[in-house]
């Protein structure tokens, strides 16, 4: 096997700051190399440099940067255009924003063919259908005429992959190709990528997710702060990592075996026992809700959902997008009124409460969102965010500052963060502030709607540990929504599996995961990309 792509001592700097510093690797023919790292590690910049799209203001230097024997360093834009799409295909993360929203997907694929092949118009149309069929799009002739938003997330991603392979490039670069997808769809797309990799086609996959990488890659390079800290055969790197950072990354992934242990920092040998659950704080009984679609037909978002949540307990809701997780959370929060069934928080039902009474009851059940930044008024500093929450909770003005500092300390921040704006905090710090705000009224229940999905794995580990600490200290109950089964397994006592608005299975998390009764649960579990470490 010869090296198709060779990179040596690559440096990329923006305005004098090096974001990629001395990176070197090679991709051989028929091989899949994975570039793994957290946000800001320089992995995406590296990928873009390989197709000459680093951007204006970037200073690129390299000891060697060659593709199929050609030096890429001094290449002109015209020559790049022949390579891009033609000999190197590029698959981006989000197909919805990467495909032209006003153009049928078939035209998008045909455009690549027009640019890189000599096919006639009729031949292109035929080839588009073949390509779409090849990436597993059903009814390819029909789908080719549809717009990106008319396709599901999985089909869109397939269409995008079809554009990348259309001109039969020797190398395909995929930047987080499955991050925006549900777990079962992710599994299908990973299978597709594995199939695409062949004798004469190589794959360079960029991902933050080690488990995804484990399924595809022959070799793995781990990046941190613009450097490659470790690279080698996938088996070796993932099973017997040499570098401390790789080990920390692997240890931070929540999964079955991490339950009851801390994810961040030194692993504790002793498993921490879960606190005994107390009184019932939330009781949802037969809740159902329908929404009217654009065609005027009512569709059930949630059907006959029942569960209870006790003080000090964590109940997870797991399911794919559109399964009704968030609607269930909003019903519990009293933000969406169910059509049928009842919801009680601490023994009081939302239904029939006056506005003032409902506001008082809201203090008992608070929420933490997936995107903390969007949940803060953009004009507010941390100080004002917390002061407002404390004001609602009835804390007198002169006590608010003191309480704010206490809350910040509870979530591992301090007084210095008071004057900052959420915009200027890191993702993990923002989520901590969101948790502090939610704790301000001293609620009995915290609804966490995908609280760690937007975070890097090491930050996710810290936030999960923090939630655990807070629960042990305050006895708050969590309703924990996630699409990530590893996170659910790690964090929850009991779990509800949702599909198409219904709870298909519920019970203690160990039981549901080890002996799933419903076939959908089994399907979900089978689809999780797994690391067989530890």
């Amino acid at each position, binding site marked *: 096997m010869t090296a198709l792509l060779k990179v040596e001592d690559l440096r990329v700097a923006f305005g004098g700051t090096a974001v990629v510093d001395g990176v070197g690797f090679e991709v051989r023919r028929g091989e899949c190399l994975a570039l793994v790292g957290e946000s800001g590690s320089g992995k995406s910049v590296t990928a873009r440099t390989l197709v000459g799209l680093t951007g204006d203001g970037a200073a690129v230097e390299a000891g060697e940067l060659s593709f199929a024997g050609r030096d890429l360093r001094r290449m002109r834009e015209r020559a790049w255009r022949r390579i891009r799409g033609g000999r190197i295909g590029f698959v981006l993360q989000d197909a919805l924003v990467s495909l032209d929203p006003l153009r049928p997907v078939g035209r998008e694929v045909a455009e690549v063919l027009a640019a890189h092949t000599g096919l006639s118009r009729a031949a292109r149309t035929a080839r588009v259908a073949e390509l779409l069929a090849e990436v597993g799009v059903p009814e390819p002739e029909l789908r080719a005429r549809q717009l990106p938003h008319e396709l599901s997330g999985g089909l869109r991603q397939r269409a995008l992959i079809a554009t990348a392979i259309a001109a039969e490039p020797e190398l395909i670069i995929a930047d987080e190709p499955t991050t925006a997808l549900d777990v079962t769809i992710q599994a299908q797309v990973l299978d597709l990528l594995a199939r695409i990799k062949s004798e004469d086609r190589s794959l360079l996959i960029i991902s933050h997710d080690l488990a995804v990488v484990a399924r595809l890659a022959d070799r793995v390079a781990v990046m941190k702060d613009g450097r490659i800290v470790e690279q080698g055969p996938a088996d070796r790197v993932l099973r017997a990592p040499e570098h401390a950072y790789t080990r920390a990354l692997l240890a931070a992934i929540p999964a079955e075996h991490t339950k009851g242990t801390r994810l961040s920092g030194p692993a504790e040998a002793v498993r921490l026992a879960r606190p005994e659950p107390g009184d019932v704080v939330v009781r949802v009984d037969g809740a159902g809700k329908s929404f009217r679609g654009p065609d005027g037909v009512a569709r059930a978002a949630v059907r006959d959902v029942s569960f209870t949540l006790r003080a000090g307990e964590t109940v997870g809701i797991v399911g794919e997008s559109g399964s009704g997780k968030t609607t269930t959370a909003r019903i519990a929060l009293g933000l969406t009124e169910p059509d049928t069934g009842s919801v009680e928080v601490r023994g009081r039902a939302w239904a029939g409460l006056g506005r003032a009474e409902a506001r*008082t009851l809201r203090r008992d059940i608070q*929420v933490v*969102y997936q995107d903390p930044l969007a*949940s803060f*008024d953009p*004009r507010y500093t941390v100080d004002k965010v917390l002061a*407002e929450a404390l004001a609602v909770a009835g804390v007198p003005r002169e006590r608010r500052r003191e309480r704010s500092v206490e809350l910040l300390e509870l979530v591992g921040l301090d007084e210095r963060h008071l004057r900052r*704006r959420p915009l200027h905090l890191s993702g993990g710090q923002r989520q901590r502030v969101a948790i502090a705000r939610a704790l301000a009224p001293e609620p009995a229940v915290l609804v966490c709607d995908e609280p760690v999905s937007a975070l890097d794995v090491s930050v996710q580990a810290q936030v999960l540990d923090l939630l655990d600490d807070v629960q042990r200290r305050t006895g708050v109950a969590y309703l924990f929504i996630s699409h990530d089964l590893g996170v659910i397994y790690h964090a929850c006592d009991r779990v509800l599996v949702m599909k198409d608005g219904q709870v298909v299975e519920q019970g203690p998390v160990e039981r549901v995961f080890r002996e799933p009764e419903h076939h959908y649960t089994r399907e979900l579990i089978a689809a999780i990309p797994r690391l067989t470490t530890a």
Partner: protein
Amino acid sequence: MRRIRPGVWLAALVLALLVLAAALPYLFTGQDPLTVDSGATLRPPSAEHLLGTDENGRDVFSRIVYGTRASLLLGFGAIAIALAAGGLLGVAAGLGNRFVENLIMRLSDVGLAFPELLLALVVITVAGGGTTNAVLAIGVANIPNYARVVRAQTLSIRRSTYVEAARALGLSGPRVVFRHVLPNAVKPVLILATIGVGTALVAGSALSFLGLGTPPPEPEWGSMLSTARAFISRAWWYGVFPGAAITLTVISVTVVGRALRLRSEGRTW
């Protein structure tokens, strides 16, 4: 604290001087803006008349200084009216039921169908001329623009996570509206407003030109500009300096407005 760019300082200084000139014009000039001197008409700038004289021999500089009050009142007053009324109507339309929304939006469509100046003329015809009524007229004429933009903002903000978060926290409806929806909906409009100050100022001048705004011989930049048009080939200073005053005001408002906006977003100046 953060460093403030010198340009912003300069613009703020200009605005401060303008406000001072509007309040206490005699601090800046010893000459009376209304004194006619038929022996010294259309004189070019000199030591005696810094910016020359007009067709009646009145000092252009002191007329500009004394005209500041009426001009600023037109620019800022009109936009303040448009912003306040447009903001409230826009938020009401964005949050209200279908009837309220349709009522406000169809009225604003009617307003938008007419040129601003024509609308202002309607108000003047009903209320009568004079500086105060001109401010009112231009303000009212601008309401539909602001109502529209604010409504669009409100529609997206009411569905935002932070509004839901505020509700989930237990804030009352009016508090959510006045603390979170209104300020955030009006924020982008403030940029529109900094530009609006300039156009309102010019629109006010047009009214004065038609004899419906500030009545002569009271000085006002716009009316000076209008009369100067007839003499532009013989006396460039007569038109150029009031025009420069308008331009300088608009630039200063824009620069200071932008700096304030960036600061409110917590970015550097």
